[in-house]
Structures are given as C-alpha cells and as structure tokens.
C-alpha cells in the first residue's frame, strides 16, 4: 500500500488542531507551493527530507521503441530529487533489515 494524500490528512487530524477541510487544503497548498517554486525556476530545499533541483537537458537522439524510428528527444527542464542525510539514514535502517 502506498501513502497517499488521504493518509496524510488522517495523520494531520491526529497531530494538529486542524479540521478535515483545513488539513486537506493545507496539504494541497503545500504541494502546490513546491510545484510553483519549481515552475518559477527555484529549487526547493526541505532540510532533513531532501532537495528538489532543476536540470536543463540538451536535445539528444531517441528512438520510438515500437517502430525503431529515430526521433530526437527535445531539450527540456526536469526535476531531480536529492534525499537529505536524515532521510538517507532512515532508509539505510530499512536496508539493514532487508538484505538480499
């Protein structure tokens, strides 16, 4: 099962004084502000969690996997996420209990 906005709402109801409507609005606005910042060209640094950075990619040759036809992949700006130290450390603990 994946964590969704509905789960985030439920926990905010337990951990804050917000009501359901406020919790929903705040969560939507939280993600909207991060998107807006990235859209305007700013990176977003959430200490402890990670940084959302922007990278400009040049055009490069690509291929339609179905037809094999060559089509260029146009230049574009993409979002990358670099997890912070604290998040990486937490996930390493999961790694330690799930070695294969």
């Amino acid at each position, binding site marked *: 099962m994946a964590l969704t906005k509905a789960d985030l709402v439920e926990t905010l109801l337990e951990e804050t004084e917000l009501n359901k409507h406020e919790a929903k609005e*705040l969560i939507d606005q939280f993600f909207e502000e991060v998107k807006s910042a990235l859209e305007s060209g700013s990176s977003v640094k959430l200490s402890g969690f990670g940084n959302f950075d922007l990278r400009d990619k040049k055009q490069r040759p690509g291929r339609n996997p179905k037809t094999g036809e060559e089509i260029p992949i146009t230049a574009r700006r993409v979002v990358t996420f670099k997890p912070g130290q604290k998040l990486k450390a937490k996930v390493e603990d999961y790694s330690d209990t799930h070695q294969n």
Partner: protein
Amino acid sequence: MTKSELIEILANRFHNLPQGEVELAVKSLLEQMSNALSFGERIEIRGFGSFSLHYRPPRVGRNPKTGDSVELNSKYVPHFKPGKELRDRVNLSGGNAAED
C-alpha cells in the same frame, strides 16, 4: 525556497489557523513521508509525483583516503519520479533551456 520560507508562505495563506499549526503540519507531512519510505512504503501524490526506494546491489568500494577496498552491503535509496503535471509545468516554464 527553503522549508522555513515554505512555512511562511503557507502561514500567510492560512492566516486564520492557530499560530504554529502550519509549522507543525508541515513538519508532520515531511515526517510522515520520511517514515513511509523508511518502512519501504511508496508515496503517491497525484500531480506531484511518487517516491519509492531503489535497490543498490552490494559492491566493492574504496576508502578515498587510504585507497583500501571495502565491501559495501546492498542498500535502498529514496527515488522521486515527478508526476505529469509537475513535469509539464517545469518544462514549459523552462522552454528556452536548450542553450547550455
């Protein structure tokens, strides 16, 4: 944009909420997302993107100071895949990003 700037923007937008609740809520959201990943659970936020863990196989690394080789266990690292809306908004705003 930093976490404190994000909190400030949201606090202005939700100025009717009790003092401190926005900060508490933002910290709770980031904590919930970190926790989910540390349990190996995916996060799916429509329009924003999804977070999951990517497996890294064991490898032999080197101590950069001494040059000694060290065996590194397999591990999981957090990964973010931007959703369609975020991809499109960032890419359109960076439309002339092809130059460099």
